[in-house]
């Protein structure tokens, strides 16, 4: 059983979480009307063996969305962060550059 170190709640069993998938894809700007861009975002995913950056939600806990780096072959968890802090950090970096 995978155990995730939720930044809010601490180490918890995977049964408390829901899985979504690839966290490297970014939702296109809502003003984009090109179907190809949206199809890529919704449907196209890599299925790597090894390092994978992915979304989990702590549905039975704090309900935070998390970004987890997990090895798909060994289930080793390398990091587990709040999605909103990761994105806020990205936004700050984008604004300052």
């Amino acid at each position, binding site marked *: 059983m995978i155990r995730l170190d939720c930044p809010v709640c601490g180490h918890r069993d995977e049964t408390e979480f829901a899985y979504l998938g690839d966290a490297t894809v970014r939702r296109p700007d809502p003003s984009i009307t090109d*179907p190809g861009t*949206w199809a890529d975002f919704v449907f196209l995913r890599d299925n790597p063996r090894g390092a994978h950056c992915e979304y989990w939600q702590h549905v039975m806990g704090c309900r935070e969305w998390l970004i987890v780096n997990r090895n798909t072959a060994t289930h080793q968890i390398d990091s587990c962060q*709040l999605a909103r802090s990761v994105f806020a950090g990205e936004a700050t970096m984008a604004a300052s550059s």
Partner: protein
Amino acid sequence: MTARRLAKGGRIDRSRMISMQFDGRRIAAHPGDTLASALLAAGEMIIARSFKYHRPRGVFSAGTEEPNALITLGEGARSEPNTRATTLEAFDGLVARGQNGWPNVRHDLSAINGALSPFIGAGFYYKTFIGPFRGTAFWMFCERYIRKAAGMGRAITLSDPDSYDKTNAFCDVLVIGAGPAGLSAALTAGRQGLRVILAEQDFALGGALLSAPPDAATDAWLSTTADELHSLPNVTILARTTVFGAYDGNVFGAVQRQWDHVAQPPSDEARQCYLKIRAKRTVLATGAFERPLVFGNNDRPGVMLASAVRTYLNRYGVLAGQNVLIATNNDSAYATALDLVRAGAQVTLCDARASVPQPLANELTSAGGVCLSGHGIASAHGHRHITAASVVPVDRNGRATGVTVRLRFDLIAVSGGWAPALQLWSQRQMKPVYDTENGCFLPVPDLLPDMCFAGSVIAAPGLSDAIIQGALAGGASTSQTAHLADTAPHWARDLHPLWCVMNAQDKPFGKAFVDMQHDVTVRDLDQAHDEGYVSVEHLKRYTTTGMATDQGKLSNVNALARMAQLSEKSLPETGTTTFRPPVTPVTIGALVGHDSGEHFHATRLTPLQDWHLRNGAVMTQAGPWLRPWYYPIGDETLDQAYRREAAHVRRAVGLVDVSTLGKIMVQGPDAANLLNLLYVNGWSTLKPGKLRYGVMLREDGIVLDDGATARLSEYDYLMSTTTSGAGRVMSHIEHLLATSLYDLRVRVTSVSDQWAAMALAGPASRDVLRAVSGDFAAALSPNSLTDAQVEGVAVRVHRMSFSGELAYEIYVRSEDAEDVWAALITAGAPHDIAPYGTEAMGTLRIEKGHVAGPELDGRATLRDMGMGRMASSRKPFVGSVLAQRPDLQDPDRPMLVGLEIDGPIGAKAGAILFAADGKTEGNGLGWVTSTTWSPALERFIALGYLGGAPERIGSTVRAIDFLGESTVMARVVSPQFFDPEGERQNA
């Protein structure tokens, strides 16, 4: 075989007697015995009959690896098949039966199967159940009898009278196995103040030490170590606990047999407890299993593992035979030989190696034993038990080089080396490697950073090494542990990899079993090889070797060795199969625990549950919810009740509990912006005090959910979702806010449990509302809301309708729900108010053509539901681009229609729609989603999706229910069957 209890010795309590029963005969035992040791002491030879051939089988081992001595424990509802007699602790009143024999295991009429064995070898099922008879019916008929003849114990169909617990455990260090290595590891970690769990499957601590002869030094070490462990508050010792599974994250599954050592658990106690152990670090001190040798008739009662013979002697005071042949290919069996000679048995040790270990051989011969070097065992003789054995000189490849000599024995003790018990490590997707020096598969250290090893599982050469390894694994910085002298050759030193004596044709002498529990012989492996099975995984499945309840603990390496031999590869090249949980069989009841029946999953109740039950509601399961289905009057059936309730709402007034609807507060200056993105329709124009129906899509353009959202004030919105969609919608919104809309100043909060909701519907609903809340509330216009009071309780009233009647939804704090509901029932009495359930609610919405769960099926688009014009073209929303995909816009896609059914039988939901005439083939034109009797139309109606719907309005289609094999004719109409202009709800 003349097994008997010795007058003294053994680690049993001879001062007390225990009485048990085996196949109706009384068996005497002492506390500290197992059923197997007591059966041996009583001279019981045949314990079970084998799986396929019904061959007599006795006790082979002294532990969890036992392939043969499987019994059915207990009687009636407590009867448990396939229990290993070798690990079953003796208790007063134990009742056991031998398995797979009729009339009993000593006289088994099915033993004729043995004569048929040439025909039921590897791949029997695959080859037999094809041709020459047409079809499978004949073979299915035969299979019933074949299955009955084969197999192990019978599962019972009575429900289990015992209860089982589940619990969670956490520790810094989990030590699995309480032999010398495990005890040493637990003690070292415990002394450092770490939280330690020490799990031992036996009822006594000590592991291999319990099988050694009494010795002052080791016995003292064992008792002081155990005492200190018991005294440490941070160490939890779990005896009778099997760790059966190792999972990711260093999580382990274990079962503690709390009350399996008594006939019946105390009434308030759980029989077993399933533990989920989360450990920071694990020490595997699981020891090793001795491997058998393979020879003709090696499965006969009276053939045992050498280490087991030693265990029965030293731990239980049972001498398993008087005239013993010991066959070995390594040093470890000499310990058994010496102990047996000293206990008074005649011992002949047959060592397959050309040069025997001189000091050990000298010790044996000077004690009175006989030692033959360069000899192997070719076959055993005797039908019901061993009477003799044939031994033969062998070369270093295991080939017989001389004539066989037949000698009389009553016990054959074998040792083919040792197999480390690395199952738990292997379960973590680890592949062990074959170590030629130690002649066994070993775990690879450091592949799993949080698991380490100590003792025989990594082939510790002796007792002192095991203790030192344990201390290091437990966290000691240097090996400064109190050493114990090695009392016996502990590990299979100088093993010569020779597992089976072969004749000149490279075949064993007679029927030689590799996997005794599944009756797999060397001949079966050879046949599989001849038929082209090369991979170990294929061979395993084709021959079923290693697939019985013992999971190949004894057979695995010998089967691999034969494969390697046949394919002329080395053992390391051949590789090994993967172990999977459970290591040893686990009672299903323990895994289930209390999660059965109504506790199978959590049940959600609305705050009005008690009222519903008091008032005779029949409840129904709706996802996790229990909801009132209908409220029968007298002995009304479901059909009678829902028709009455639905008609009553249209005629007078009804009240229905809709608390299960999802309720989400959307708050903040950007709340309207969020709603605009979530819903297909626009929200900028919605004024405070108003509400609006909305539909939301998934990112791929398919409908996700629908419901009304009310603007309570400037920045406060209350969104409602469908009952089943509540969780999905909440996660969807939270995901958007966390990952792409993080700039929006808005928060969402689930308030589903905080608010109860009830719908007051029917022509008289306004009069009822006026009676409880006054004129102001009763004057609400459609799609408006207001705060109000019902008998002093604050409520919020929304005017909206799901039933199509004049209706109000009343929201109230959950704790006040029953007061408000009761007040409405009381105030409604003059207007003939009646509660209605989900079945009538369904009828009313189908009459109105409102979509619900069956229509929101995860495949339908907004357009399919006939609501395409609802989508705003002036703003982007979730799914807006992909909803325009050409295939989703295809005019031939099935669209929502109404179906008026001809005749006295309704359509079945799920029925397939076909044209009125023509062939019934292909996928049809569409399908039925929801169906009901309509009191308003006085006929059966249905909703469904139908291709080419606009052209088919007014035409007739067939609705075929392929499961019930009924066909009805239906006229295609608009889904709004009743009051399409909405005059009643806007009245």
